[in-house]
């Protein structure tokens, strides 16, 4: 197996944990990842994610099981100014998952979503 950047593996571990939605063991985690990385690599990633506070773990028998840590803090600082450079869309090599929409663009997006056939739009129609 070619060595892969840890950052990439981190993203993949997070994706697998998020999709699992429950505590899963490291073995399960490895199996669900593309290219089956070694246990030790995955453990390195998991330790990093623990440090970041992005995963939680419980001891089950002789090993740990992990899940994505979500929604533990009810209080959100909510100030973007501290992260001004990143919070604004203006970056050269970093791109946010979505760009900030103007009111007009948000309206257009809602129109696109409203065009969905009813069979498809029933699933997650919680958009305001």
């Amino acid at each position, binding site marked *: 197996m070619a060595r892969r*950047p*840890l*950052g*990439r593996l*981190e*993203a993949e571990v*997070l*994706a*697998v944990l*998020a*999709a*699992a*939605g429950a505590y899963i063991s490291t073995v399960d985690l490895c199996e669900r990842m593309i290219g089956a990385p070694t246990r030790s690599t995955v453990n390195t990633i998991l330790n*990093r994610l623990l440090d*970041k*506070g*992005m995963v939680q773990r419980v001891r089950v028998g002789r090993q740990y099981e992990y899940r*994505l840590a*979500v929604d533990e*803090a009810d209080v*959100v*600082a*909510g100030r*973007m*100014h501290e*992260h*001004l*450079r*990143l*919070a*604004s*869309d*203006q*970056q*050269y*090599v*970093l*791109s*946010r*998952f*979505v*760009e*900030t*929409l*103007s*009111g*007009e*663009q*948000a309206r*257009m*997006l809602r129109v*696109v*979503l409203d*065009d*969905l056939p009813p069979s498809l739009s029933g*699933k*997650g129609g*919680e*958009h*305001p």
Partner: protein
Amino acid sequence: MNLFTFLPVAVTLPPAILLGWARVPLHPVWTARILATVAASATTSVVGTALFVAVNYGATLAPDAADRLPEWMLFGDDSPVPSMFGVLAVAVFVFACVVVGRVVRRSVSGTREARRLSRGVLECDEPVAMAVPGWRDGGVLVSRGLLRRLSGPELAIVFRHEETHLRHAHHRYLLVGALSRAVLPFLRPLDRRLRLAVERWADEETADAVGDRVLVARTIAKVALASTTSAAGAAGTAGAAARDAGWGRGVGRDLPGFAESQTVERVRALLAAPPARNPVTGPMALLGSSLTTGPFAAAAFQLDQAFGLPFI
């Protein structure tokens, strides 16, 4: 100096301008590669030609110093370079060096800050997710607002999307686009299309991995709408402040009414049928665009002369 001096620019610039306006009818994987190639060739040609003409202008002004330059750096005919061209070339080259330095510096500092912040979760309510390039210290930067809003399957989509960015080193494409538009401001539409193609690339791979295009579309829409509604005030001020601080300059993706949002385009594409993979057309088009523009970009830097390669 003759008309052939400007051949590389004449060949590489038109496609770069054209592809900013015309949609490439290919899978985003190929679109992104072609646009990056064309942007890089055009920028290299312009900078190379400017440098070449500038050096020869210098040789015109100071013939003694010119004797010490290698032969391939000078025009064969030893004809003097008119001041008009010479001054223009020097100006273009100096401008290019300054803006390239600025883009690189800001990219480095921005990435460094993102790495620092990605040691934890960004504590703000706005949903933020971005891929942070880096071998050991790269990763994904997400905000509390994103984690709170999305369900497990939706978060999986976001992480998968960012993983695709990291796997294919998309930051390099973005850097090529940013450099091109900084050196040649009229390549801004090309840069926009390149950015869109890179996002679409990640969207399509995510849809393939997850197997649910509609859920990917919905997740993007959900995050985008949350960025507007919940943080309308904050985002507005932050955006304005960022522009004041100089961060918004030249990018302008959030200018209201500038163009249709890329997010809307991505959602629309995901709700449509998956694009054809172009297993033959894609590589052919990429090869074609590389072969037509690449050698000219190299020629602009006189590489064919330097290495004694026959050209054309």
